[in-house]
């Protein structure tokens, strides 16, 4: 690649002005992006941050002159290095894609064609567009694999997508984007589907390669801490409008808008640690496995003190959700037992009495699927009132109203269907349904992870208030350390079906750490642009010290 063509660092590469994009839903067009400007210079990384519905992905694709089916670029101008993408023909835009502008998608597993080898897909546009001959492109791809620290870089390209792990696929996709040495790469939530410990490695290799080849990039995410590691400048979007523009450091140290601050609002909750001696639930040396597969729980012992919150933390496959299934009786333990108020609970759901079922309630991650879409709020909250407490008629409606007010909603919501509620409101109704049973213990399975930050904060505060008022005990299953810090008294760290560590929050979150806890805690991105650099340096130091 000649430097003349690339232009100078600092020249304007992409200029988007007053972009309006419409999306089609419910039989009409809505504005998804309402007049946003973007100016990106060569070699610069811009973070586009916003919550669901902010229009950030749509805007990212528009930078390639592309609109998904069901969307249309309505007005505005997109100048890419002197080319007007709004006026360019479909063929001209197509010529730019895969040569000068490349794209890295969120779901690598679905975005690779299952029928072709990885290296074929990596070099496809480079070769087809005549940028490099095939052999040269392939040896360059192997070099990129090496730069991205993929294992076995000389041969990993001969594999098929389903033969490679998610984190590796995401790096192969970065290599694919980099192969034609584009001027601009759009990263669309590239690490959202990954576990935190994997995310760190992928982030580090992506950042290194973008710096190495001095490529401009737009990095789209909902996670401010992640984008802070990658971007030079950050643009905050909400409902298709720009909220705030700033360079990364000043954005983090001195956000101008309330909304920007709310993006890390969960981190502002602080729960004073409480230590109760009265054990309400004990998971006692429990093993469990799904039929025909290996153990998913291996000698798990967890004590839950009354009136406190125990957070169970771990990555996917750690057995944290399986633990909840063993407690509720959905998956009977193959060994060990669960004690509730000192008495053993029957292992299966069928053997448990209505009274035992009533005392332990569950709240799910996806409120959408946790409520029957054909039932109104009245049916949803009313059913446990009838079923457990035998309330009928006016008595039931009275209690229903109390519960709805307890979760900070009002009577307007009682006759709505789930589809007529926002994400946060749905989760509140699920909380009310659990409360309606008048339980002692509530198991919260990732209850906030599908929600936007500001809504998460509201839900967590509600749960804390209810705990204080009603003396509830929570088991809080999550992969998100910020949530753990916000709500827990005790923490249980799980890995591959085993408990790695259990103790008070202050003990677990302070050194000395067991290896895995340390890896897990240190991998959680912080609101500090130097965090990743510092972490990598530290890991390198330790690596060389142990070597």
């Amino acid at each position, binding site marked *: 690649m000649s430097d003349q063509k690339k232009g100078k660092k600092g020249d304007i590469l992409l200029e988007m002005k007053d972009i309006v994009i419409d999306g089609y839903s419910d039989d009409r067009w809505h504005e998804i992006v309402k007049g946003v400007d973007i100016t990106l210079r060569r070699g610069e990384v811009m973070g586009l941050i916003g919550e669901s519905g902010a229009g950030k992905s749509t805007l990212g694709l528009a930078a*390639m002159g592309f609109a998904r089916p069901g969307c249309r670029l309505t007005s505005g101008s997109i100048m890419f290095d002197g080319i007007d993408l709004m006026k360019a023909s479909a063929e001209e835009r*197509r*010529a730019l894609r895969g*040569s000068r502008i490349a794209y890295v998608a969120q779901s690598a597993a*679905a975005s690779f*064609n299952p029928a072709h080898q990885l290296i074929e897909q990596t070099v496809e*546009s480079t070769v*087809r567009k005549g940028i490099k001959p095939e052999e040269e492109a392939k040896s360059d791809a192997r070099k990129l694999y090496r730069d991205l620290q993929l294992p076995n870089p000389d041969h990993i390209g001969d594999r098929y997508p389903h033969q490679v792990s998610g984190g590796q696929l995401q790096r192969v996709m970065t290599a*694919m984007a980099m192969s034609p040495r584009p001027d601009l790469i759009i990263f669309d939530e590239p690490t959202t589907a990954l576990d935190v410990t994997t995310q760190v490695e992928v982030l580090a290799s992506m950042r290194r390669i973008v710096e190495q080849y001095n490529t401009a990039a737009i990095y789209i995410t909902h996670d401010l801490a992640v984008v802070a590691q990658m971007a030079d400048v950050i643009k905050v979007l909400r409902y298709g409008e720009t909220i705030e523009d700033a360079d990364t450091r000043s954005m983090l140290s001195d956000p101008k808008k309330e909304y920007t601050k709310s993006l890390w609002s969960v981190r502002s909750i602080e729960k004073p640690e409480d230590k109760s001696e009265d054990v309400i639930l004990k998971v006692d040396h429990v093993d469990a496995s799904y039929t025909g597969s290996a153990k998913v729980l291996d000698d798990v012992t967890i004590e839950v003190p009354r009136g406190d919150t125990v957070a169970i933390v771990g990555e996917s496959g750690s057995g944290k959700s399986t633990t909840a299934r063993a407690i509720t009786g959905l998956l009977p333990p193959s060994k060990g037992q669960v004690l509730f108020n000192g008495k053993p609970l029957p292992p299966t759901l069928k053997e448990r009495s209505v009274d035992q079922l009533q005392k332990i309630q569950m709240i799910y991650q996806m409120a959408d699927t946790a409520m029957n879409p054909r039932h109104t709020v009245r049916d949803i909250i009313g059913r446990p009132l009838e079923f457990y407490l035998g309330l009928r008629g006016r008595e039931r409606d009275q209690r229903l109203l109390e519960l709805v007010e307890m979760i900070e909603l009002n009577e307007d919501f009682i006759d709505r269907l789930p589809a007529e509620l926002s994400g946060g409101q749905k989760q509140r109704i699920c909380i009310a349904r659990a409360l309606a049973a008048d339980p002692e213990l509530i198991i919260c399975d990732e209850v906030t992870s599908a929600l936007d930050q500001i809504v998460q904060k509201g839900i967590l505060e509600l749960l804390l208030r209810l705990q204080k008022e009603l003396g509830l005990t929570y088991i809080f299953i999550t992969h998100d350390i910020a949530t753990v810090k916000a709500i827990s008294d005790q923490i249980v760290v799980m890995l591959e079906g085993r408990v790695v560590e259990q103790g008070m929050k202050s003990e677990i979150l302070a050194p000395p750490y067991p290896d895995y806890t340390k890896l897990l805690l240190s991998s959680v991105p912080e609101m500090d642009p130097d965090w990743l650099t510092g972490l990598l340096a530290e890991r390198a130091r330790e690596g060389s010290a142990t070597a």
Partner: protein
Amino acid sequence: MHPVIRTILQRLGLGLVTLFVVSLILFSSIEFLPGDFGEAVLGQAALPETVEAFRKELGLHLPMHERYFDWLGGILTGDMGNSFSGRGSSGGQDRSRPVIELLAPRLANTLFLASMAAIISVPLALFLGITAALYRNTIYDRTVNALTLTTISFPEFFVAYLLILGLSSFTKIFPSLANIDPDAVFWERVYLTALPALTLTLVIVAHMMRMTRAAIINLMASPYIEMADLKGASKSEIILRHALPNAWAPIVTVIAFNLAYLVVGVVVVEVVFVYPGVGQLMVDAVTTRDVPVVQGCAMIFAATYILLNLFADIISIITNPRLLHPR
């Protein structure tokens, strides 16, 4: 063992088991005949000895499992027993013919008709289905869609009579009866078979086109197709390089499904055009309750159907990269 081979063997085994169960069902159909069927077949005037001899010939005095294996062995060696018809003829003389003799020439005719329909309809349906999917929601797509929806709603005999009215009664282009005789030359056969083949084609094309369209639309919605678009691949590259290698399985499934449907479709069409094929033979045998002939015809239809589906399964297996390149 390589997973592809293992899966194929599994499917073959499953196909055999299914054929076995089908043969059991067919065999047991003779058990359900009423007690006096011997007289019904041989006629009221039949002597008791004749009836007894007939029952003996069918082996009704032997235990059931013995008869079953005898029957199955017969079918495998091409002996399907003798037809019931012709037995009651006067003089007690047995003029019934072996089922295989009745079947063989008619099977050739049916295969000829089905192949003719398949040769026209498969390429046509694939072309229409793929183009409708690629030009989705255009006038072209909507028209083809409404037309095929109408066609699949028509009973086969309605389509057949419409064609007879249009192409035979008024215009005299084709004959309305397809009673081909055994020594007709090839082109004469084609000419005589034109209307039945055209009827089948119309029905099959509609089904196949709609299924192809759905399969292709489903495929084109895959994230990797969008990725190819975002990589700047041209429309032909997207289709040839990215969609096609993954399209074999769904397309072959659609073709096999519709060829199997063709097997059933011939029955009605043969009756309409008085075409001397297996379908008509079977319908006649059902009306006269000539069980050995029904068994023979049904076995042929069922085996074809099962084999076609098996073939589609195997194609899907050998084009599945997850099975071809195991972890």
